[in-house]
């Protein structure tokens, strides 16, 4: 097995562009573009806290079911992509959704979100709010 021991990977032709070959070998992709630039699992109940995170500096409790994640390293623009799920309660009949708070414009260094109980149309704190962010870092 071959092994590389290195602290930094940098593209030779272009510093921010390292190409990897797909699993099937038919395509190549830019390594940096496919990497998650931030992710977080957040417990909104009680004292809000990260259960684990990457490139996330702090949280703010914006009220019931509402949280803002601040990034350690900001995105280069506001057009990053976000995936999410949330976990709360037991069983399979709890409809919870996580969305971005749209009361303020997007910014590059933080992401405000809310969790909604769909049946009650009410905000609620959840045990686990998962988010993952892809895009271009500054």
């Amino acid at each position: 097995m071959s092994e590389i021991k290195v602290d930094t990977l940098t593209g030779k032709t272009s510093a921010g562009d390292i190409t990897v070959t797909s699993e099937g070998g038919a395509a190549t992709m830019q390594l940096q573009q496919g990497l998650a630039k931030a992710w977080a699992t957040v417990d909104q109940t009680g004292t809000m806290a990260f259960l684990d995170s990457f490139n996330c500096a702090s949280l703010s409790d914006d009220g019931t079911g509402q949280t803002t994640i601040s990034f350690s390293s900001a995105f280069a623009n506001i057009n990053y992509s976000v995936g999410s799920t949330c976990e709360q309660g037991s069983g399979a009949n709890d409809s919870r959704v996580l969305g971005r708070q749209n009361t303020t414009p997007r910014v590059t260094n933080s992401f405000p979100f809310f969790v909604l109980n769909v049946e009650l149309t009410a905000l609620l704190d959840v045990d686990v709010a998962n988010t993952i962010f892809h895009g271009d870092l500054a």
Partner: protein
Amino acid sequence: MAGKIIADQIEHSTAGSLDTSYVVNGSAKMWSNVQSDQSTQNDSLNVSSVSDEGTGASRRNLTSAFANNPFSHAGLSVVQTNSGGFSRFTSVSASAVETSVRNSANSAHDKENSCIALGDLA
């Protein structure tokens, strides 16, 4: 010509080591952020085109196809606090994913949305 290294593992001096299979398999193969008109893309990876499929619905066509269908995907829609809203994401083929944004009354809802997909590319 750009340099090329073939390796099964990379190791950082302090942060530990990682099989490069995690780099290839664990990287997002597609991500996209689309405006509320369901056809204007703000930014993306591996998306060749986006089409408006009706209120709250859009299709992302991929530049490089996945090896299998379905593939793993997740997403988020942007809605006003308390107005509800959720997204359904469907991998309609190995080279396209459709999103459908709905409000808490299960009505189609034109809102900004993001999605991310992982899996094996062809």
